């Protein structure tokens, strides 16, 4: 039987990607392969599997590999996924928002593997990757820092206006990029705030 292929790009919308994969699984399609924009599925029993999408760009290639191995050992299947669309070959990225190893992302390496798709065979028990509030805050912080850094980067670009004259169109573009990154940063900052509020009372 021929596998089903679907073309999608979700970028930083982790929950949307997760919902889509779970909808596919509910219809009886199990993920077997991902490329930059393509997802390949094979037939399975409807709702046999469920998926979570996790941001792992704050991990060095070695840390990410160890984490994957740990998950696979526990019986989950994992796929890496890109968060950006970028088609040149061979690249290096500096991720100043990362703590310690992992600041330098290369391709091949940790670049284009910013996300991890985790598959679990449904067993009636809840499936969440992060359950402890402290751990959840740490996870949201890695996302917030990534977006915040990018947002501030583009916003600083706007400040160049004070020193040299920049075409209006460029300014608008810089502003748009800043907003695109700062909105998710605010979203994750609020998520952190909510967990922290609960944490004052509950563990």
């Amino acid at each position, binding site marked *: 039987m021929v596998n089903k292929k679907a073309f999608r790009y979700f970028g930083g919308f982790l929950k949307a990607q997760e919902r889509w994969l779970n909808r596919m699984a509910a219809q009886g399609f199990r993920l077997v392969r991902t490329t930059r924009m393509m997802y390949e599925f094979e037939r399975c029993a409807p709702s046999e599997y469920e998926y979570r999408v*996790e941001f792992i760009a704050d991990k060095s290639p070695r840390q990410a590999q160890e984490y994957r191995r740990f998950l696979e*050992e526990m019986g989950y299947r994992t796929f890496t996924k890109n968060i950006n669309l970028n088609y040149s070959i061979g690249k290096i990225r500096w991720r100043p928002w990362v703590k310690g190893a992992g600041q330098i992302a290369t391709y091949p390496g940790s670049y284009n593997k910013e996300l991890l798709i985790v598959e679990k065979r449904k067993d009636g028990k809840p499936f969440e990757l*992060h*359950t*402890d509030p*402290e*751990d959840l805050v740490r996870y949201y912080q890695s996302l917030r820092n990534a977006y915040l850094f990018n947002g501030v980067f583009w916003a600083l670009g706007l400040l160049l206006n004070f020193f040299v004259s920049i075409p209006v169109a460029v300014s608008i573009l810089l502003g748009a990029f800043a907003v695109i990154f700062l909105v998710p940063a605010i979203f994750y900052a609020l998520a952190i705030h909510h967990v922290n509020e609960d944490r004052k009372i509950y*563990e």
Partner: protein
Amino acid sequence: MRDHVKGGALTETTFFVLLALYRPNHGYGIMQFIEQETKGRLSLGPGTLYGAINALLGKGWIAPFGEEQDSRKKLYLITEEGRRVAEKELKRLIELCGIARKIIKGSGDGE
């Protein structure tokens, strides 16, 4: 960070992972141990468990068990220091339970 200054209380996750490792155990075994012992009340996410194991390895409260590295599942075991921490936590919880029982039961008796 600030939370730890108060009294060194372990998080429930930390304490349960330590308890699960009084005998050699691997990730999946730890998860099952916690689910069974709490009858499903506490279900640990694999990402959280991974973070907890790494943090405890860093503290030296647990250590890898056995030599086989690549082929088999990684096993972990609590260390002497880990046992000391767990015993201290048990004492703290007993004290807390004692106080709570006195007050909650006490107020119940009066009515």
